[in-house]
Every structure is written in C-alpha cells, then in structure tokens.
C-alpha cells in the first residue's frame, strides 16, 4: 500500500484505481513470445541436427544439416573394404583367380613392408619388449584372420565341388 500523499477527496478515486482489474492477453501469448526468444530457438534446433536420419524417415523436412567431412582413416577403411568386396566378388562369381592372386600377393608384400618398417620404428620409440608383445598379439590376429579366410575359401570350394559332382551325376 502506498502512503497517502493526496487530498482526502482523492481517496475514493485512489481506492477505485487500486481495484481496477488486470486484463489478460490471448491464451497463446506466452507461446508466441517463447517462439521468438532467440536463445531458446537455437537450443531447439540442435537436437534436430542430431536426429537428421530420423527426420528423413519422417518426411525429410528437417534433413538440411550439412554432412560432416569424412576423416582420412575412415575414407581409407572404406576404400580398402570396397576393394576387398570387389576382389571377393570377382573371385567368387567371375573366377578371376589370377587377378585375385596378383592383388593378394601385392597386398601381402605391401603389408609385410609396412610391418617391417613399423616394427623398426616401434622398437626405437616404444622399446623392444613392447613391440614383441604387440607382435605376438598381431600374429595371433593374423592367424585368426587366416583361419577365417581358409574356412571361407574351403567352404566355398566344397560347395562348388559338390555342385559339380551333382551336375555330372545328373548328366
């Protein structure tokens, strides 16, 4: 309550002024204001970028976020995987055995060269014991990899042989 600093005849008017009701804006007033608060809107846009793929399924309207540049390691990995797939397909379906053999030999030589250089540099930086430990792990991984390859090739050969035998018998 404010102190009286007016004449007595203004007292009833002052009382009426204090009783004046507040008026309300429309119901969506707060929403309209919030929709124009820059900080809140920028905070809402961030998750949309993260869910770009989901938005694609939902109609693609929000799928305007730029793609991130691919890292060198990721690109190399994808290229190697692509070449491996192509070589496998060539070997399996087109029987390009010579080409595959050449590619495999080249890859193997290349791998050995990298491994040799890497071992030398590694032994200088990390020490001979660490390198020996890592090499043991690498050999285990190589053995596992070769086992898998042999299994795949052997299985495929068995299937082809069985198919040939069945074909001959049928003829």
């Amino acid at each position, binding site marked *: *309550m*404010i102190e009286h600093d*007016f004449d007595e*005849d*203004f007292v009833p*008017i*002052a009382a*009426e*002024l*204090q*009783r*004046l*009701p*507040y*008026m*309300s*804006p*429309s119901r969506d*007033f*707060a929403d*309209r*204001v*919030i929709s*124009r*608060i*820059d*900080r*809140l809107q920028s*905070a809402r846009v961030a998750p949309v970028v993260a869910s770009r793929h989901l938005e694609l399924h939902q109609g693609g309207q929000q799928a305007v976020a730029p793609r991130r540049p691919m890292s060198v390691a990721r690109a190399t990995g994808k290229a190697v995987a692509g070449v491996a797939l192509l070589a496998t397909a060539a070997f399996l379906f087109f029987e390009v055995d010579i080409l595959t053999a050449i590619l495999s030999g080249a890859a193997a030589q290349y791998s050995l060269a990298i491994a040799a250089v890497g071992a030398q540099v590694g032994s200088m930086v990390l020490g001979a014991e660490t390198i020996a430990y890592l090499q043991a792990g690498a050999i285990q991984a190589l053995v596992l990899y070769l086992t898998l390859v042999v299994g795949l090739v052997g299985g495929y050969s068995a299937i082809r042989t069985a198919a040939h035998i069945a074909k001959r018998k049928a003829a």
Partner: protein
Amino acid sequence: MPQRSYNDVSDQQVVVFAQEGREDAYRELIKRYERPVFSLIYRMVRDNETAEDLAQETFIKVLNNIDRYRPEFKFSSWLFKIANNITIDHLRRRQVDTVSIEGAPDAVTAERARATAVTVTSGGESPLEELESRELGASIEKAIARLRPEYRACIILRHVEDYSYDEIAEIVKLPLGTVKTYIHRARQELRQYLGDLR
C-alpha cells in the same frame, strides 16, 4: 530438463534460471507479468490487438536481452520501463494523443469501435454491488482514457502498480519533479472528469 516450481522463487532468481537458458523460467516471468504489462499498455493504447502486439514486443525485447538485466534493479521496473518506452514510441508514431472511450481513434467500423471500447469486469460480488463496481470502474477507465499518455502511465504505475515516485521516474525516464507534477495534474484531471461523469 525437468520442470520446477517457482512459487517461492524471487524474480531475481527466476531471471538467473532464465539466463541459464531454462524455458520454464522464461514462461514463469511471462506468467507473472503478462497481465500487469498488458493492462498498462491496453490502458494507454485502448486497443486490444495493438496492446497485445506491444506487450509481445516488450517481452521479446526483455527476454532476448535477459543477460543485460542488472539485479540491483527490480525486474518489474525494468520490464515496465521497456513496456512504457515501446508504448510511448508507438503512440508518438501514431500521433494518438487522446483516445475515445467509445473505441480506439483508428476504429473505422462500428464493430471495431465496439471491440476497442472500454469494458470493465469484476467478480465475487452481488449483482447490485457488481453493477455499482462496474459503473465506478468504468468511470475510472473513462477518466484515465481522457488523460495524456504520459499522465496515464504515471498514474497507473503509482496507483495501480504501487510504485514510488523514484521508481516511476526511473521507469518513464523523466526527472522526479516532472513525475510528481504529472501525477498531481493527473489526479486533478481525474477528479474533474469523474465529477463531470457523475
């Protein structure tokens, strides 16, 4: 982010939450002040649509600049200051110095005039009391509508919002002496208009 209750939280604390980017804090500030701000603006421009636009502009300006709020001042004073500036600027642009109690001066149709005419409501009284109250309230509204906008802002801030002369001077950016003069003249004019109406 979970919703929290702001029932016992001061304006200054809610502002701190808003400065951290909490949407519920922004909504709380709007909830606390949308009616006082809208009422002040409406009583100055006498047009519902315009009042809503100006109130919206006020909140957008205040909340987008919430980081600039200085806690040594009352948040409501800062808010009313922006509301008053925006409204006075609007009135100056439109050169609307006086308004008619029958409707906004720019009302070009009868429907628009009815929509912008002063209406006062109250509740919790008997029909007779309500009628008397409505008549008195309407008389006051009519009298306020005849004041100059500067007088209107000062008298509303003084008698409706209970601000001190110093606070009003800060809000309307006028010298303290000028504010006292405006309020004194506004009271005289209100007395006179209400005497004419009765």
